[in-house]
Every structure is written in structure tokens, then in C-alpha cells.
């Protein structure tokens, strides 16, 4: 699923949160958005998902302007923060609800949840616990699984490695890579963890004060060193 940002600008008061001329993410890419706090990563996600209105420009998913149609929602999965969780449900109820509103049958849901078994590590389901009573890491897992349950062609995850223990971070990396391989879906993840980002992404985009200052494929020479040098100099 191709994603395009055309001349998108968003300001909060005086502060420019996002200022992108043209940004195209192609079908099947795994893109890592990196940047310091306030670089515009979450704002970009929210503009793409039509959760905030850009001052200028348009975001398109599969050629459909996200602000003007709801058709893109069926092929998109996202987890940005706890605003995506219905926290008075148990994880099982939440998955069941997500599956039903996305037209996924009970059998398919059970089959899909099996794929997340290793990621859940026995801590998420089967405890009769409401989502609001889960640890931050397990809430994150519920949100990520909920975003992937309907096999979206475009998956957006904001800081998916946050709150996860090292084992779950590795499971997460494996999950994203295999999901991309099996479905050919486009995946965009934002992260402060450069190692994980370089490990799984086919393309890395560096944001600073809302602007894209570097955007290259993984095989770009010395990409890791350049990006690491950027963060060292900006520390």
C-alpha cells in the first residue's frame, strides 16, 4: 500500500511540528522514522491517520486522501498510544471486538492470535485482567496485536519497542519482519532505538523540527554511522 504526503505542514502555535514537501513510501517497504523528541514523528502518524488536521497539504493512502474518505481505514492498522485501547475490556474481549468490527471470523482470529503467542509470552491473555490493569509493556503488546489482527496492508506503529522487555523487543522485530514478508504490507515504525530500526527497516527517514533531513535506503553507504553521528552531535 503506497503512502504519500504532499506538501504537508502542521504548526502548533509558533512551533512547526511537521513540514514535508513530498514523501512517498512504496508498497512493501519497512520504514523507520527516527528523530529526537519533538521531531514530528507522532505528528506525521496523526496526520496520516487523519487524527489531526494539517494546516496545508494532504496525506494519501493507496491514492485516497485520508481526510476526505474513510475507505483507507479498512486496509490500515495503527497503534500510536493508549487512545487506541478500550481499557475496560480484557485483552481477549478487545481482540474479539477488533476482529468483529473488521469482519474477521472467530476461526481466523484464533489462527492469527496463535502467531502472536510467542510475542504475548503468556502474560497477555488468560488472566481475566482488564487492559487498564496490565503493565505498560503488555498494554503496548495488546495495542500492537490489535493493529495487526485484520492483516492491514499498511501498518503504523509509534515507538513499538517502548516499554517492552528485551525478549519482547526481539519477538517484535521478528514479528514485523515476518509480517512484511508474508503479507507484503507496508510498515512504518518510529523509534528511538536505532539498533532495532536499522535491523528491520529497509529505509530510514530522519526528522528534525518537522522536516525530513535524511531519507535513504538501508544499503546507503555509512547510513548507520551518519545517523548515529547526527544524534551524537545533537546531544
Amino acid at each position, binding site marked *: 500500500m503506497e503512502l504519500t504526503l504532499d506538501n504537508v505542514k502542521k504548526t502548533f502555535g509558533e512551533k512547526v511540528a511537521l513540514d514535508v514537501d513530498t514523501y512517498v513510501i512504496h508498497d512493501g517497504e519497512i520504514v523507520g522514522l527516527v528523530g529526537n523528541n519533538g521531531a514530528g514523528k507522532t505528528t506525521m502518524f496523526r496526520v496520516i491517520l487523519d487524527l489531526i*488536521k494539517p494546516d496545508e497539504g494532504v496525506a494519501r493512502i493507496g491514492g485516497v486522501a485520508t481526510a476526505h474518505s474513510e475507505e483507507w481505514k479498512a486496509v490500515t492498522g495503527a497503534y500510536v498510544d493508549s*487512545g*487506541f485501547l478500550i481499557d475496560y475490556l480484557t485483552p481477549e474481549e478487545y481482540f474479539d471486538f477488533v476482529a468483529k468490527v473488521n469482519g474477521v471470523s472467530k476461526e481466523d482470529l484464533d489462527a492469527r492470535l496463535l502467531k502472536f503467542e510467542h510475542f504475548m509470552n503468556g502474560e497477555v491473555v488468560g488472566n481475566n*485482567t482488564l487492559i487498564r490493569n496490565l503493565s505498560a509493556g503488555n498494554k503496548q503488546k495488546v495495542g500492537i496485536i490489535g493493529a495487526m489482527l485484520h492483516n492491514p496492508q499498511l501498518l503504523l506503529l509509534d515507538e513499538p519497542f517502548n516499554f517492552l522487555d528485551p525478549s519482547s523487543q526481539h519477538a517484535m522485530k521478528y514479528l514485523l519482519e515476518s509480517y512484511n514478508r508474508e503479507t507484503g504490507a507496508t510498515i512504518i515504525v518510529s523509534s528511538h532505538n536505532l539498533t532495532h530500526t536499522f535491523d528491520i527497516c529497509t529505509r530510514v527517514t530522519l526528522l528534525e523540527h518537522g522536516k525530513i533531513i535524511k531519507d535513504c535506503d538501508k544499503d546507503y553507504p555509512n547510513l548507520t554511522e551518519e545517523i548515529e553521528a547526527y544524534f551524537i552531535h545533537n546531544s
Partner: protein
Amino acid sequence: MNFSRTKLLYKLIRKNQKLAVRRHPMLDQNKAMKIFIYIMAAFWAAYLMFFGIMFGSIDFGAFENFDMIDGGMIWFLVLDFYLRFTMQETPAQEIKPYKLLPIKQNFLLNVFLIRLGLRGYNLFWFFFLLPFGILAIVKFYGLLGLLGWLFGWWLLFVFNSYWYLIFRTLNQRSWLYLLIPTAVYAAVIYFGMFHDSGNQWLFDGCVQLGRAFCMWNWWSYLCIFAVIVVLFFINQRMQRACVYREIAQVEHVEKVKSTEMSFLNRFGIIGEFMKLEIKSTMRNKVVRKQFLTGAICTLVFCLLFAFTDVYDDMTFMRTYICVYCFACLGTITLTNVMCMEGNYIDFLMSRKESVLQLLKAKYYFNCLMLLFPLLFSIAPIVEGKILFIEALGCMFFTSGAIFPFLFQLAVYNNQTLQLNAQITKSGRSTKHQMIFSLAALLVPMLIMYILIVVFNVEVASWVMLVIGLLGTGLSHVWLRNIYHRFMIHRYDNMAGFRDSLNHD
């Protein structure tokens, strides 16, 4: 700790406490609520002043006015005690952010406890006492006597605040501790006023105390002050123990049993949203309280109507009760339409037409709830107090006119309701919500009343029924219209929901 440092820390804590009140998220985000609170406070102050002037002017015959008020001292203290539960926190809760600072815990506790005694709320009753005293005391004891009397009463309210704090703290362990002050008050009032009509020692004692205040009797102040000091140290010990309990507090993790509610499966996605609505009501403190309040109001009105004759001869009240029985639950819950969903608005907005399905589910759920008042109204129908068509007219008018009106709030509501906060802290009632809820209860009642006066009950009921049936039948049209308007306002609403969301 030297004096200047003590003074500085005291000032800092005082400043922080004031900022905490001024910048409370509920008030910070919600100007209408802020104005509403000020209006309510002004209303109560005016109300108390009115009573103060009234009691100051009444002729009590054998008793002087101030003797009557002083004699009833215990009633003021009881009322003041229970009113404090709505607004006074414990120091152990407030001390938490200061725990790691290089300040002695005892000093902090003392500051918080002294602030508790000196807080403005202890002067609240002066809105009553001051005008009363000017009228009733100055003429006997002069201005100085009035000052002494007010000072004595202030000491009593300070005493009450420390007495209250003991039970407010114990209440955190179990609500059963509240039975202790209740039993104490009941026993004191019974034995002091009602047990022996010839010996009203409580009344007489309080009268003497009041007179002692007027005459600046130092013993009277010293006695109360001594009790305050004792209570202060009891509280200090209790709070010291509570600080650790507060810090080490482990959040209670609820274990829930999932319920399938398969009977709703036949309604497809709307059924799923209806399940969500039911679970939200069952599992969220604020939603549950709202629902129970509405249900209890409905039940009480129905029972009053069915089994008493208090409203039998009053057309206006009869209309009021009939409309209110059906409309009150929906009005209480739908005034906050979308506010609960503000907690997971991003989830809803990232799925096609989820909000529309949600609105439909809410509508059907509330329509189903109307069957309960219909059931309750069987008794007044059988008793012949209302006509069956009247109950039916009110029910359909609620689903076809009042609900569409209240659902308009889905377009304007943009403050997230904290699902498990205390009711007072959950963040509610914007300007729109207040106007809509008042109109939802008053306008239908007036329409029906006018129709009854102009025609008769039967015609009025039929008109209500026809309007209601039309609105109910066209629900899919107006719900979609609301959804479209919600989508036009969505960016502002989402921003409002996010800003008022408590992520803790």
C-alpha cells in the same frame, strides 16, 4: 530547622496547594465548570446569608435568637462534618510529591495539618453566622461580643476539621469506620436532646458555651483549643502511618469474568457496540454511578407516583413525574455522549464509521432501557393514576424527541470523562451539557402540560406518541446526520478529548 527556612517552606507548600486547586485539570479545561462552581458557591453563600438574616430577625419567644442557634450547634457540626467528605483530602495523599525532598516528614505533616485548620472552608459558615450575629448579638454584647462569638464558632469548625480527618483517613481502610461518628452523633443528639424532655443538657450546654464566647470567656476557648491540640496530635500519628501506606499502595487489580452476551450477536457490529456499552456501565465507576443514579431516580419517582397520593391532585406534577420517569436515565447518561469514548477516540476514528455504529448502539441501548420505566408505570396505570396511552406517549416521545435532542451533544462534547475517577474529579458538565440536560427535562414537560391544559390528557398523549413514533422511526436519518456533523467537527473534538484525557 531555622525560622526563615520554616517560613519559606510553609509559603512554598501553601503556594503549591493553591496552584493545585487553580490548575486542576477539570477546572483548567472547563471554563463552564469553573463558572458553575463559582455560581454555586455564590448561591450557597447568598442562601446562608438569607437564612442568617431571617434567623436574626425571627422572634423565638422565650429564647434569644443566638441561644436558639447556639443550642443547635450540634446540627451545624454534623452537617459540616458530612459536607467535608466532598472536598477535603488527607495530608497523607498530598505529602507524596514532597517525600524525597530534603524536608523532615514531621515538618511537612505539621504544615499540612496547620493549613487544614487555617483553610478558608472553616469560615464558610460565617456567611450565615456573620449576618445573624450582627442582627442578634451586637445589640446585647456589642461588636466585641460578636467577634468573640465568631472566634468561638471558628474554633469549633477547626475542631470539626480535625475530627473529620480522623474518620476520613479511617474511611480509606473501610467505609464501616464512618459508622463511628454517625453513632456518636446519633447518641449525643438522642441523649442530649430527646431522651429526657426535661433535661436537654446538650441544648443548655451549647447555649452556655455560646454565651461564654460572647463574653470572651477564655476558659471556653482554651477547652476547645485543648481538644483541637489533642486531635492534632492524634491526626499527626495517624497520618505518619498513612504516608507509607499511601506510597506503598498497590493498585487493586480487578479480575473479571468475560461474558459473551451472545443474544446481542444477531445485531452484528451494532450488537458488539451494545456489548461495549453494557461493559462500560458495569466496569467503570463513573459510568456505573451515573447509570445507578438515573435508575434509582426513575424507580423512586415511579414508586412515589404509584403508591402515594402526593401528586394525585396536581396536573403539573403528574406531567412532570410521567415525563421524568422516562427521560431522566437517558438525560443523565446521554448528556455525556462521546465523553466516555474520548478515552479511546483514536481507536474509533481509525475504523470506518465506528462512531456511527457506536451512536446507533447507544441509541438502541437507551431505547431498551425505556422498557424499565414502562414496567414500573404498570402500577400507576393499574391504579388508574395515568392512562396507558399517556405512559406510551411519554416513552416514545423520549425515544423520538428527547433522545435525538440529547444526541446532538455528540457533535459538541469534547471533554473526556475519566471513567474511574471520583465523580467530583471526573471532569463533567460543559455549558452545552448543562443547557441540553435542563432543556431535555423541562421542555417536554411544558409541551405536555400545555397540551393537557389546552385539550386533555388523551389528546396530549396521542400528540406525544405521534411525534415520538416519527422521531423513533427516523432514527437512522438523524443519527447519520449527527455522525456527518460529528465528522465535520472531528478535529476540534479529538483535540479536546486528547487535551482532557488523563493518561495516568
